Every structure is written in C-alpha cells, then in structure tokens.
C-alpha cells in the first residue's frame, strides 16, 4: 500500500462498501415493500434474487450486453412474482408458505440452469467514477458508484412520490390496508396484489443482476448471502417507507462492510465478529423500535404477519 491512510481507511471502506453492498438489498427491499404495501408478503424474493443473478449473468454472457442481462433478470423476477401472486389469489392459500416454496424453486432453477455459466466471464455493469478528483486510490474505489445504485435511489424517490400522489399508489395502499374498503370501491384486490407482487419480483430480479454483473460480479451458487430474506426484516425496520428502505439498506450495507474494512487495515483478531454486525444491528433496531402497546406504525392492515 503506497497511500497509507491508517484508520481513515476504515470509514472510507465502510462508505464504499455501503454503496456496493446496499444496492441489491435496496432493490429487494423496495420490491418487498411494494408487495407488502398491497397486503401480501413474498418470502420468495430470495429465490427471485438468485434466479435473477443467474438469468442476468447468462444473458450478459450470451449477448455481451450487461443491460440486456438486467432487463431479462427483471422480466424473470416479474414472472416469479406473477406466479406467487396468482397462486396466492386462490382461496385458502397462505402467502408465506407459497413464498418459501417459491424461494426454493427459484434457487433450485437457478442452480440447474446456471451450471454452464459458472466459467464464462460476463461484461460488468458500468459505474461512474465520482472519485476522479482524488489521487487516493481508496477514495477512488469508494466513490466508484454503479449506475444501478443511482437507479435505486431514483426508484425509492419515485415510489415515495408515487405512493402519495398517484392513483395507482393510493389504490395500492387502499388494497393493502383494507380489503373491505377496496371491494366497496369496486377494486379487485387479488388482481392488484398480483400486479404488485409481479412488480416487486422485477425489483428483486434487478437486485440479482447487480450481484452477478457488478459486485461480487460473477455467477456462482453462493452468490447470495440471504439478502433476499434480510430485505423482509429491513422493510419492517423501514416502516414500509421507500426512502427509509434506502437508508436501511445503506446502514445494512455499511455494517456489512465493517468486517472486511477492519481486516484491510490490518486488524487480525476479532474482526470476524463484525461480519455479524448487520444482523446484530437489524435485530437491535427492530427490538428498540418495537412496542408492546401499539401495532407497528405504518404496517399495512391486511398483512398476514401483523394482522
């Protein structure tokens, strides 16, 4: 290391890590937020994420265009969401059980179809070097921001606005909060929930494409470390608010980068404890913000886990 930043390297690495690691979590949690806002929970997003990673990578390998990969991952995610939504629209079907089945199906299919793509190398998604002004390589690395991260921020802002100020957004909230009210308005809750789940699946698919096409940037069977499931907790933690999803994802990503960052400045003992930081953090925040007296503020009324 020519530029020795000492301990300054830690916050820098955490910042860079937060941006890198948070992107897929942000996409999955936005997708999950959309689904849950409609009154259903989709635990299958972990499977969608892994399948999206595989499908995106494979498409990028075949076409040579990473953006085609992102598009196909989104499409595949939407199909998974659609299947979940349609099955859950049938009478006496539990969304959580279907979600777990879809999770296993998604990972299973991804491993099956993904075998031939473990070796080939796909082109990476482009990123923007916001660190050009600095000479320090660590700064440059930290500020090398992928385009999808920016797209995620834009999506969070658009969703925030859309849930408040557009008819589809309000309709989604109506359906998620009260089936009776929705029916009295002449809406068809099952149709709207299915569409929301499909859109949510598309978000998760994009998150998967980011994993395989940028960071870590290859396709293998251990590509996801449970981001799809953590996203469910993050949505609760973010109180079903898209902009909060962004902050939560960033916090989670930053916490996840703590272990590697400490290791990189030469801490040799105990750093592995910090690998658990994101999980401990999530648990801690959930406990701290919960209350025995009130229902979770902001929880959609029709959600099976909070009803």
């Amino acid at each position, binding site marked *: 290391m020519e530029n020795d930043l000492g301990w300054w390297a830690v916050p820098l690495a955490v910042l860079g890590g937060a941006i890198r690691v948070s992107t897929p979590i942000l996409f999955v949690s936005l997708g999950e937020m959309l689904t849950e806002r409609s009154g259903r929970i989709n635990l299958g997003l972990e499977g969608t994420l892994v399948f999206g990673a595989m499908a995106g990578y494979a498409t990028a390998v075949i076409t040579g265009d990473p953006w085609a990969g992102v598009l196909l991952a989104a499409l595949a995610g939407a199909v998974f969401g659609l299947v979940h939504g349609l099955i859950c629209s049938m009478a006496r079907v539990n969304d959580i059980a279907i979600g777990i089945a879809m999770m296993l199906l998604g990972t299973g299919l991804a491993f099956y179809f993904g075998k031939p793509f473990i070796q080939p190398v796909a082109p990476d998604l482009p990123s923007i070097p916001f660190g050009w002004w600095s000479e320090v390589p660590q700064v440059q690395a930290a500020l090398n921001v992928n385009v999808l991260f920016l797209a995620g921020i834009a999506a969070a802002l658009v969703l925030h606005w859309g849930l408040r100020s557009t008819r589809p957004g309000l309709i989604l909230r109506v359906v998620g909060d009260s089936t009776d009210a929705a*029916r009295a308005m002449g809406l068809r809750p099952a149709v709207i929930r299915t569409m929301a789940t499909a859109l949510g699946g598309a978000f998760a698919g994009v998150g998967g494409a980011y994993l395989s096409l940028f960071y870590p940037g290859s396709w293998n069977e251990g590509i996801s470390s449970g981001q799809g499931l953590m996203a469910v907790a993050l949505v609760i933690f973010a109180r079903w608010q898209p902009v909060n999803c962004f902050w939560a994802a960033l916090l989670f990503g930053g916490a996840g980068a703590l272990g590697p960052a400490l290791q990189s400045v030469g801490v040799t003992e105990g750093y592995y404890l910090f690998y658990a930081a994101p999980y401990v953090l999530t648990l801690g925040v959930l406990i701290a913000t919960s209350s025995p007296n009130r229902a979770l503020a902001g929880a959609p009324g029709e959600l099976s886990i909070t009803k």
Partner: protein
Amino acid sequence: MRPPVTAIGADPLPPGALEVETVGMTMRFGSFTALEDVSIRVAPGTFHALLGENGAGKSTLVKCIMGFYHATAGQLMVGRREAEIADPRDARALGMGMVYQHFTLVPSLTVAENLVISRADAPVVIDWAKERAGLEAFMAAMPFRVPLDQPVARLAAGEKQKLEILKQLYLGSRFLILDEPTSVLTPDEADEVLGHVRGLCEAGEISVLMITHKFREVTAFADEVSVLRRGRLVGQGHVADLSHAQMAAMMIGAEKEQRPVARSGLRGAPMLELRGVKAADRSGLKEIAVESLTVHAGEIVGIAGISGNGQMELMEVLTGQRAARGGEIRVQGVPYGATRAEAQSHAVRYLPEEPLRNACAPRMSVIENIAFRSFDRNGAGRRFWLSANEMRAAARDLIGAFKVKVADPDGPIAALSGGNVQRAVLARELTGEVKLLVISNPCFGLDFAAVSEIRARIVAARNAGAAVLLMSEDLDEVLELSDRVLVMSEGRITYEVPAAEAKIAEIGHYMGGHAA
C-alpha cells in the same frame, strides 16, 4: 374502464334523484334464506326507511342492490330500467352509493386521500394543491366538517360516520343507501346529518334508502317505510300514516315487548376503584386522566360523553388493552392488572365497543367465540383436553337464550349481522358469576326489542349484586340505566350526579366541554 351498465341502446339516465326498485329479490347463503321475494320501490327524491329486527336481512338486501352480493333470484330496476349490477363499481357508475354498517374507510389513509381515491375519475397523477383547494371548497359547503389531514384511524367513530356520508355526497351519488348511519352519532349530530340528507332529497338531488333502528328518525326524516322480518317484506306504508306502535308491531310480529326490570337490592362494598389513572389517548398526543372513580356492588355507574372524549381509552385500560401510565386500579380492594386469571377470579366481564374487533376472534366459529370464557374450565378446575360437545351444548343454550340469529354455529362469527355479534358477546359475558361488568355502548346497533331485553339483563345483573360501569354515547340509555351519572369530557371526568337528580340540560352542558 367499462361503460356504465344500462339496457342496450338506452338513453343515459335522467339527472337528479334516481328511482330504484327491487323486484322479488331473494338471497340464499347455502341452505339459509336471508331474503325472500322482497320488492321495494324508492321513488325519486324520497327518503325511504327500512326497518327490521337484527338479522332480518336489511343489510343483505342493500348489499344485493349494491352488487356486493349477487341475489339468488329477483331483479333490480334503476330509473325504471332493468340494471345488471355485477359489482359495486357498476352500482357506482349508475350513481348509487352506500354507507356500510361496518366502516369502509381506509384506516391508514388521510381523510383527503380517502376522499380523492374514492372518486372514479381520480387522476393518475394527483395534484394535491389543486385537490386540497377543491376539498376545502366542498367541505365549506357542508354542514359538518372533518379534518382533512388526519389519518382515518385517528378519527372517532362519530367522525368516521360523518366522513362516510360526506364521501358519498362528494362522489355525487344520486341514490344513497345508509346502513344505520347514526348509530355512533349523538342525537344532535344525527339530526344535523340527516337534516342535510333530507334537504338534498327535497331538492330532488338524491333518493335515500336508510336502514335504522330508531323510530324517531323514521318519523322525523322519512317519507316511506318498509319493514322486513326474517327475510320477508311484512309491511310498507307512508310514515305519516303510521305510529311507532304500528311500526313496532310489524317488526316483531306476534312477539311481546319486554318490560323493564324493577330495581332492587342495596348498594354494597366498593368493587372497582380507580385512583389517578393516566393513559395516552389514541393519538398518543393527549392524555386521559381519571382522578377517582368508584363503582359499588349493586350499582350502575353510567359515563355519558360524546364519542372520542376518552371513553374508548378508559375501556381499553380496564380491559388491559392499553397500558396505564400511572395510578392504580383496584377490584375488590386488590390491585388489578386485567389478566385473564384476575378477571376470572374477580368475575370481571366486559363488553367493549366494536365487539367484533375487541371481543371476538372474527374468523373463529360462533361456538368457539362463545366459549372463550369457559373453554379451559371444568367446573372449578381447569381442563387440558377441550370438550367439543360441552362447548357446543353451552353455545346452543346461549344462542337460544339470547336469541342470537345464527345460520351456522360452526361458521365464523364475522358472518353474523352487526346486532347478532353484539348479542353473542353479551351472552358470553353475562353468563356465569358476574361481580363487575364493564360495558361500552351495549345496545349499539340493536333493534328496539333487543335493546329493552339487554337493558333488562343489565339491570338484573345489578340487582343480583354486580357492579356495573356503563359507558354510552346514548344519553337516554345512561339516564335510564344508571344509579349515578358521570360525564367524561376531554379525557377527564368532569361531573357527577345521582341519576335521580340528573338534568339533561346540565349534563349536555358538561358533555359539550363547557364546564364552568
């Protein structure tokens, strides 16, 4: 968007109030017939009242009209034309709107959001500045107002009911169905709301079909009345030609009205004592504080007050649904934490408001719901294995004794009509030993025969030595039942008077929060 459903090639319906008619409407739920061959005509610009006992099929009839249910047989005529209504959207496209018995507002949306999204032509992108201006102009022209920025979950029942009616007016409905619209309003509020609706009828802008249990409202506001009994139309006529007694006779047929039970017995030892009890109110911003409240055995203490003044929170503190911030609750002199064991050992029973939500498991069966107090009891002891037969037998007895109209005792309790849920919960709570009874709006949504029966049971419990704390928005009920009357206003108890000396004007004064 589909076009409104009208006969093929027909002209659009004329503007102004709609004429709506049901012809031979029949509705079956499985083998149970909730509605049989009912024909009712609501002439344009008239105010039509629909009377009937709990479970008579009133809500079922209007839900068939609105396309919420699909009638097994029969026809609907709108503006003298046959109308095929597949779902509420079709009904709305025709200009028909309904205020349901159970609220259909979206709790987490604000009042403004609820109003705007309920409009069929809500724009895809909502320009809130413009909508706000429009809403404020609309509200300004209305006789009552609801705060636009509050989430509906924060509104009191009375405010929600006003908002439901405002919403229909905002949507420009030309035929309005009201299902017990005033059950949560004070008499003054009810008069104000119905007076305005009546005015719109007279102006020829809307026709109204209103379900109610209050004869007073029928006489004061309706032109015509139809009476249902056990799903059949048993009487019809002009309100001007009918007395209350005649309407009552049509409603209950040959059955006799019950007489109020005489009071007897002496006031006993203090049963329930509250000292300095404080709790957060539903908005979390204000606080309710009860300095001191004592209910003795053999006494009914009535708390009068306009809804949303802390009664709900007080009830929740007593039932253990809301944590108290301080102070002390004692039952029979012992600190009381409202656990199941404590409630059982002190024989404390509850009837909270909105019993389907606060005192039932809506998707569990009627039998199971009735067994909540006793399912794990075996005489004085406990049991591990439940006895389905005993539960069934006990439930059957209570359903009979309290005349709960149940199509299927094994079906979910949520399928019962509003009044019958109330009866089922009362049956459960009034059975067995009762030392302390805490009740809130016990006759909400009950027909008049049921009202006198339930009130008689409450007085009977008192005569048998139970302490009764009664919270009610119906001042007449408080005055009729109570030995002592308290007034609750803005989270505090502001007035106390023995029922014998109570004056309505004085109480009304304190209810309005104008305490000197």
